[in-house]
């Protein structure tokens, strides 16, 4: 099976996390059975500078908050959401 949108996921980074990684968006291949947590763990393995943020991260899959154990779909967008401080 070729490497295509069906088996990749787009990852969005914001604020402090984007500043630490020096990148705001990347694509990653996914594997059968992948969850939010397993994708996050592979990302942190290649970018260890993200490790300190993990305890306080939330995740959104296609703009919906999800949990570590939730499955990911090929073609989806996974956002790493550091603690928000909207408002004022």
């Amino acid at each position, binding site marked *: 099976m070729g490497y295509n949108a069906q088996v990749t996921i787009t990852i969005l980074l914001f604020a402090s996390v984007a500043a630490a990684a020096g990148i705001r968006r990347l694509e990653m291949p996914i594997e059968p059975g992948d969850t939010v947590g397993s994708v996050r763990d592979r990302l942190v393995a290649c970018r260890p500078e993200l490790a300190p943020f993990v305890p*306080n991260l939330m995740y959104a899959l296609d703009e919906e908050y999800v949990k570590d154990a939730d499955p990911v779909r090929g073609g989806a967008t996974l956002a790493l*959401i550091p603690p928000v*401080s909207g408002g004022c």
Partner: protein
Amino acid sequence: MLIRVTDQVLNTQEAIAAVESPAAGAVNVFLGVVRDNSLGRRVGFLEYEAYPSMAEKVMREIAEEAKTRFGLIDCAVLHRTGKLAIGETSLLITVSCGHRAESFEGGHWLVNEIKKRVPVWKKEVWEDGEEWIEGPESLGMQPPAGMRA
């Protein structure tokens, strides 16, 4: 229902007009404003970053929930992004309803939920540095691991 994430100046009159109704006896307006100090430090300016499409989606969900919970007639939620000077408005919320109590309770609840759930982040910039402010009220914030002696 007016919902908007924008880098343009927020217009209070527009947000009030958006919730007007002949059945409304009360309108409450909340302005979150950039102030010149934060935890004792002098702030130069703030920079707001958003995940704009998701921020608007979550703002709309919160606004719909507020309408049901507090019996609001209508509400508007506008959040500004980019560089904001002292005195500028970052968050503008208007609600209309029959009577005053719901207008205050509904408005207050809306601001609290926005602070917890909407993917917007704030960087404080001072004369000698800057810092992303990770909101202690965010749903994603862990309590401290343990008490210190």
